[in-house]
């Protein structure tokens, strides 16, 4: 008899040896809170979507629009905002659709796939927002250099002459560094949160894929 068959013999015999949970205890369990990763992913994702939507909503005050007008980029920024609302709506729809497709009666592999897909939607949403922030920043920077005389005066003062190439190089370098740090922090933050939540799921998903290679 091989090992597993020996175990099977015992497995069947063991049926009466488990603790008996009463109906009252089961009733009580039904009203407990779930601590499943799907619930956590849902909560974090909704917070993320709200946070990013709030950022784009609250940063657009009157002063901001006035500056845009002075820089002659108000129409462009209006288009950006318009596109942004459209994109938020599409993301929320996709997130909802993917979240709804998570089904515990699916096969193990399909369940994992739909969880990862839901998570990916939110991840794309975050990368989209970061890219939009980067793009907006670049547009505003170009407009500032083009239409804001104050910055040109500072540049002239800083370099002490009319040739201010070094000033621009330093400014450009700092901007790149600033963005690299921001992106780096986000990346680290997500690695930590989702790494912690999804490590086991990724490992098991890889194992299933390996079996089917």
């Amino acid at each position, binding site marked *: 008899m091989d090992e597993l068959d020996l175990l099977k013999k015992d497995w069947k015999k063991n049926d009466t040896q*488990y603790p008996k949970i009463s109906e009252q205890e089961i009733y009580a*369990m039904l009203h407990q809170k779930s601590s*499943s990763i799907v619930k956590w992913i849902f909560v974090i994702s909704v917070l993320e979507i709200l946070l990013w939507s709030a950022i784009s909503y609250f940063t657009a005050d009157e002063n901001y629009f006035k500056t845009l007008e002075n820089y002659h980029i108000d129409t462009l920024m209006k288009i950006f905002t318009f596109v942004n609302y459209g994109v938020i709506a599409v993301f929320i729809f996709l997130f909802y659709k993917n979240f709804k497709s998570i089904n*515990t009666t699916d096969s193990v592999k399909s369940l994992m796939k739909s969880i990862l897909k839901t998570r990916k939607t939110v991840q794309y949403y975050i990368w989209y927002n970061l890219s939009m922030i980067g793009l907006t920043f670049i547009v505003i920077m170009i407009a500032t250099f083009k239409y804001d005389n104050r910055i040109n005066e500072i540049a002239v003062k800083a370099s002490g002459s009319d040739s201010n190439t070094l000033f621009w190089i330093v400014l450009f370098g700092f901007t790149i560094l600033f963005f690299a740090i921001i992106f780096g922090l986000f990346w680290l933050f997500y690695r930590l949160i989702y790494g912690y939540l999804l490590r086991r799921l990724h490992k098991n998903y890889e194992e299933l894929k390996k079996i089917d290679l």
Partner: protein
Amino acid sequence: MNSSLEQTFVSQLQEHQNIIHKICRLYTSDEDAHKDLFQEITIQLWKAFPQFRGEAKFTTWAYRVALNTAITLYRKKTKSINTIEFDSKIHKFSHDEYNYEEEEQIKLLYKAVHQLNDIEKALVFMYLEDKDYTEIAETLGISEVNARVKMNRIKGKLKRIVNP
């Protein structure tokens, strides 16, 4: 959800709770974790219950949701310790006719199964529950041939752990 549905669910689960206990036994190593996983599986089963049409047997439906919960949804609260203690607690009543050698072998086997990864444990569980390879493959979402190959590898692995 209405109370008659709740009542049907509770009595079905109460009757077939062993299937959940068996999964908890494979995926946890101490009593607290066992209870915790049992509770999470119960919650997930209850959430999915309105879609249960009764076409499949309650146990067939339940073990699938339970496996999915154990493998994918459940977040282990603490690192598992204390493996053997809990297992032998369940195990000590299990033999009417005492056969020391076989008893030791079985203890070793349970310990070996605990060393397998989550997916391997699922395969072992379904094998022990007499599921055929079509069902095993379908539950995991892999091909039937590969399910067989993997099962044979697991058998080999267990043999090596038990008889080093």
